């Protein structure tokens, strides 16, 4: 029975990260990379997964070390740990996904200061046990990835008229001759798309009576 309820807590941690505490649409955290890299779906996915990997790793390590890190120096310690994993992800991308690395550019090193990660370290991993922090990392990471997926899919389809461009599965959604609404691949379009999606989630959450 006890394991059953434990399992439930973990599953709740994951679903909470994706839905109720969705970092983009509910907490509205980490807006810089969200707005900047979501021009193409593959970039959005890459950014989301990279952030998720860093978040999961840093959550676990920070939670494991939480009893040994004194309060006064916890922020520098968190930042060093996060920066370590970001650099690891950066090196791995450079070695195995150079195209994605080139597309994401400066936003990979900037994951270090992504407030989602430091926010989870402060609010969750620094206080909760390792396993729960792991599932919280998975949940929030997936939530961020799903948000970027939706946002970048919307922007790519409307702004460039393509789906999964730069991959083997590239599709011209409305045919080659379609003239896309280029503003959606511009920064202004990023704000418009994000605003529409934020409004939509608010309406849906109100309808479903989710707090």
């Amino acid at each position: 029975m006890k394991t059953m309820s434990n399992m439930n807590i973990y599953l709740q941690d994951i679903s909470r990260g994706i839905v109720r505490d969705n970092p983009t649409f509910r907490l509205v955290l980490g807006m810089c990379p969200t707005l900047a890299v979501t021009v193409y779906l593959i970039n959005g996915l890459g950014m989301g997964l990279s952030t998720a990997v860093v978040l999961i790793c840093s959550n676990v390590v920070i939670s494991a070390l939480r009893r040994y890190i004194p309060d006064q120096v916890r922020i520098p310690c968190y930042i060093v740990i996060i920066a370590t994993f970001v650099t690891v992800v950066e090196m791995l991308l450079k070695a195995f996904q150079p195209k994605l690395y080139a597309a994401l550019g400066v936003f990979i090193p900037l994951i270090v200061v992504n407030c989602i990660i430091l926010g989870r370290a402060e609010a969750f991993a620094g206080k909760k046990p390792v396993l729960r922090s792991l599932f919280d990392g998975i949940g929030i990471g997936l939530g961020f990835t799903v948000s970027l997926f939706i946002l970048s899919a919307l922007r790519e389809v409307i702004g460039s008229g393509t789906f999964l461009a730069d991959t083997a599965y590239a599709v011209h959604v409305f045919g080659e001759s379609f003239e896309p609404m280029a503003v959606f691949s511009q920064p202004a379009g990023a704000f418009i798309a994000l605003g529409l999606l934020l409004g939509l989630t608010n309406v849906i959450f109100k309808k479903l009576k989710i707090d």
Partner: protein
Amino acid sequence: MRNILRLTLTLAAVSIFSAVILAVVNSWTEPIIAERQLQDYLESVRLYFPDVADFEEKELEGNLFDLVYDDSGNLIGVIGKNLEYSGYGGPVVYTLAVDQSAAIVGYNIVSHSETPGLGDIITKPEFHDRFVGKTLEELDTVDTVSGATVSTSAIIGAIRGMTEAIAKAFLDYEEEVIDITQVPDGTYRGEGTGLKPMAVEVTVEAGRIVKIEVVEQDETPTYFVLSYPLIADRIIETQSLDVDTATGATFSATGIVNCVKDALTKALEQGGGEESEDDE
């Protein structure tokens, strides 16, 4: 006191932990990244030299060059990287590829500040293609573009100078020197191009140039008088074609020098001119 020590040690421990992880991952990914960058570079070299198998970096007068080799280790060309010259609007950075016979394979403008719509023709294929296949000597015949004379003559001059430097440094290139003393007596006709096509008659006596006469020309009269007879006198005086062409009419002067070179080259090839006068 104990507290400060604890804070310091914690931070130090976290940093060491971080350094170890980074060192391990770096030693794993570094060779992969280096290999990938090498492949990317070879890919860009392949645009110029499809047979590239290997290259070797050399430095010359502050510029970096890659000597490009094929499968069997033969030098097939040279690529100059991040070369710079001064264009109309400021410095122009370019890449230059020259094959083993000192002919231009191509160039690529990396950055420039020439006038959009005029000087930036140097980045366009229609201008670039004027250079392709041109040997060092033929580079003099690349035309400038009116409206962008400064920009285009600057790049022609830069590429010619750089090709000559590459040829001399890496390609065992030797400029053909005409030995005037070997030319039989006679009067020889030679053709070349100043601003427009021109022709000269060169008279050689006892292995010396004694007279240079321009017989055909359509140069701008006010400039032509600056170059001739001054340049002819210089050639006769030094008995050399390696003369200073700075006369105020450089194009005409260079044209005359090339005509004389042409005349003497033909004379040597024929072992005596058709118009030779000593056959009686």
